């Protein structure tokens, strides 16, 4: 599997998007390929990428998704580190005490021999040498926790505005309800006595001496609207004469990293609290099972559930083409297939959708329908309404697989068996008896096989055009999860994937 360059072999996901196998997932319950686009992403946990501290989601929300202890450099967005300095402490309150106590304290050489020092901390960027001292933030006695936040200047005004609009909207709502109440016809069949006599309910209540029943109407609170002024801030005069120093003017990125005040001068930059990161879990949209569930702790890179496609679907690696690609000329490609599962697979390479492969997926899903089963069963998740969300599953956005193939393949004449993965076999001596192999199998060892697939690029291709071959790979998959109590044995399914291989470009015409 090549990580650094895009793989020429692409699998069609069940949603119709082409992806290399290392970007695909395999839902064992559906059983289908899934990709990052067609699964539901969920936030598993918040953590700080610098101090690797796990932060509960309610606390993260409260802290505005920022770490309490780590800061980013406002200059270059690198992480700031706390540095300690020792400063001599001037013991102000002790001096008058010394003077009071008089003669016996002064002759002792102790104070001069032991100058008291104190550790003070400041934040410094190891990348661009920015420090909190540059902007005049005083050093702190403790390394974390006491750094000041820059306040939002107009927070009070914003709060008044918010209260004002909330009350306006509330009043609007009340008036509308009042209006509707008046408009609705009376429930009583007969007019009430008070209507005839002109006595209203409120009048009677007042006569009896009761208080008004109606809820007090909310009055919108008063707000001072903004004042427009004819005075506008003029251009500073010295802008025409003074040279500017670009080092003192912030860049766009620096301004936007501090969205509240967006300072233009460098000396207004403040250390920014570091944004948290998240761990994601992925869920199949159709059956609502988890595909990926990471371990909770931020220092762990392992998964509790990991259904990567490369653990379940045979991997196809393109080795080489036998001849230079020419339009219309028959050619052959060598493909290496590997079986990642613990069961033997029967694989056939086909040109069209295999007919017998139409397994009844609905029935299968019914069979492994989750009955609040144990895979994702943290009790917390259940109570917070994940079960509720399951009922209205989002629709899957499905699209047609884009037809890319421009070469016709010769399907393999017979299926072949790819034996199970066995790590210990790698070290065995090759004692396999030479068995009768089909013609197309070039080489076989353990769970890997090299096959030769004949194809011919379309005749109308020009030199430089990319040749893509497409085929259906049918494979047997042994499903080990079955949640139905009656079936304990693993069931075998014939699945297929559509695969596209970029074989290369049409070779330039040779002078012949």
């Amino acid at each position, binding site marked *: 599997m090549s990580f650094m360059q*895009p793989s020429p072999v692409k699998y069609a996901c069940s949603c119709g998007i082409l992806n290399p196998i290392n970007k695909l997932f395999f839902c064992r319950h559906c059983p289908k390929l899934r990709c990052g*686009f067609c699964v*539901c*992403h*969920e*936030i598993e946990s*918040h953590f700080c990428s610098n101090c690797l501290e796990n932060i509960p989601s*309610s606390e*993260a*929300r*409260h802290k*505005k*998704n920022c770490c309490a202890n780590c800061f980013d450099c406002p200059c270059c967005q690198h992480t700031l580190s706390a540095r300690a300095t020792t400063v001599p402490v001037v013991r102000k309150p002790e001096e008058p005490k010394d003077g009071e106590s008089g003669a016996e304290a002064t002759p002792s050489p102790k104070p001069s021999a032991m100058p008291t020092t104190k550790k003070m901390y400041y934040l410094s960027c190891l990348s661009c040498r920015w420090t909190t001292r540059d902007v005049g933030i005083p050093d702190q006695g403790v390394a974390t926790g006491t750094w000041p936040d820059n306040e*939002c200047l*107009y*927070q009070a*005004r*914003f709060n008044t*505005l918010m209260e*004002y*609009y909330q009350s*306006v*909207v509330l009043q609007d*709502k009340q008036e509308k309800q009042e209006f509707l109440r008046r408009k609705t016809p009376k429930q009583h069949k007969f007019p009430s006595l008070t209507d005839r006599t002109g006595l209203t309910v409120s009048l009677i209540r007042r006569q009896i001496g009761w208080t008004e029943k109606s809820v007090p109407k909310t009055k919108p609170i008063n*707000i*001072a*609207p*903004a004042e*427009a*002024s*004819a005075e*506008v*801030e*003029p*251009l*500073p005069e010295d*802008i*025409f*004469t*003074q*040279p*500017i120093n*670009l080092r003192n*003017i*912030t*860049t*766009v990125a620096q*301004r*936007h990293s501090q*969205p*509240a*005040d*967006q300072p233009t001068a460098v000396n207004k930059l403040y250390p920014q609290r570091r*944004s*948290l*990161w*998240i761990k994601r879990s992925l869920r199949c949209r159709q059956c609502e099972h988890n595909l990926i569930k990471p371990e909770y702790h931020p220092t762990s890179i392992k998964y509790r559930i990991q259904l990567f496609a490369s653990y379940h679907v045979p991997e196809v690696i393109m080795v080489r083409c036998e001849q230079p690609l020419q339009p219309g000329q028959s050619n052959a490609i060598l493909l290496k297939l590997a079986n990642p599962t613990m069961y033997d697979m029967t694989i056939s390479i086909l040109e069209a959708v295999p007919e017998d492969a139409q397994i009844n997926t609905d029935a299968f899903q019914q069979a492994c329908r989750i009955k609040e089963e144990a895979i994702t069963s943290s009790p917390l998740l259940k109570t917070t309404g994940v079960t509720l*969300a399951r009922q209205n599953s*989002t629709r899957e*956005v499905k699209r047609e697989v884009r037809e890319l193939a421009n070469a016709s393949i010769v399907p393999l004449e017979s299926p072949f068996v790819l034996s199970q993965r066995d790590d210990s076999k790698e070290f065995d001596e090759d004692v396999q008896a030479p068995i009768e192999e089909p013609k197309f199998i070039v080489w076989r060892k353990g769970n890997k096989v090299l096959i030769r697939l004949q194809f011919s690029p379309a005749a109308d291709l020009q030199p430089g055009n990319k040749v893509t071959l497409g085929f259906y790979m049918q494979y047997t998959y042994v499903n080990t999860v079955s949640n139905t109590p009656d079936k304990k044995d693993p069931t075998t399914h014939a699945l297929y994937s559509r695969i596209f291989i970029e074989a290369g470009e049409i070779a330039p015409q040779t002078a012949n």
Partner: protein
Amino acid sequence: MPLYESVMQEKPPIVLDIGTAYTKLGFAAEAYPRKIIPTTVVLTTTGVTKRLFDYVGTEQLYDQIVDFLQTIFFKHLLVSPKERKFVIVENIFGQTIIRETLARALFIHFDVSSVLFVPAHLIALSTLAVPTGLVVDIGYSETTIMPVFSGVQILSAFKDHSYGSCAVHDEIRRQLVATGVKEPLLTSSVLEDIKIRTCFVNSYERAQARASSDQTQPPPPPPSVDYAICDGDAVISIPGTVRESVYELMFEQNNERDSLPHLILRAILDCSMDVRRALIESIFVIGGGAMVLGLLPRLKQELQQLLANDSYYRERFHGELQFKFYNSIGKQNFTAWLGGALCGATDLIQTRSLSKESYLRNEHVPDWSNLCDNRHGG
């Protein structure tokens, strides 16, 4: 007990203002956006960064919007969009396809519970608590002018023009290339950086003196700046004339009479007579392009000069008129977002939003310009 409250509270709605160049994102009832990020997507196939709204075909736009929103939710806001409420600040004359595709991505791909679309100009005024104003939005790709009176947008008087920040970037590039700077050095991020760090809007007197420089000596230009381009490993000199003159394209006098002061006056003239004075005295300039130094004094002086000297406007405006400007709370580039955040904090989010159920009924976002949605009583 703030912690208790924040735990008990319902999840705050997400407020998005997706601009052409920058996207402002955050939560309702907060005084400033969490992040301001470039509106770009990194293509997974090639790793190339491209603008969100460069697309061919609806499906590509849909994929790009999904990718972009995915980054917003899981890299910046760190919340799951499922079952959330949204406030989207939108351009009232924005393209229907973008609006519909955004709604489809939110409702179908991300399964959000409701979306409230709010018009940017109107909602920007709410940050001032005034009902009337002439809102001038200087954005990246265009400058738009919308008069609002008593909370009603006067659509017939809407004006727009293509001089936004993008045009300023092109002007900087043109002038610098003319001084002999190699064009490949001037990438769009370099141009933007030059613009915000060195350029300003010239004062009216100096601009006039420069324009009619034939008889008098033009005023000495401001000092030129040596600008180091990190990627290109080069130092270019930005002449003082470039620094002071790139914004002149907003005030250019031509026969079209469509410079920014002309557009403002024409927008006011398109309104009915009774509201004109109120609009003149409440001009509100927002948008990232409005943050440049010296824009407001120049604009004010140009407007006053046009009123005094241009015969067309002199015939139509009478009396002592004084242009007045509002100061925004916060920075102008997120004023519209701030309005959305205020709106999302009220009960309107419950009553006025487009809910998922009503969207899924016919997969269509109601639009003011669509006759089907505006027939009275359905």
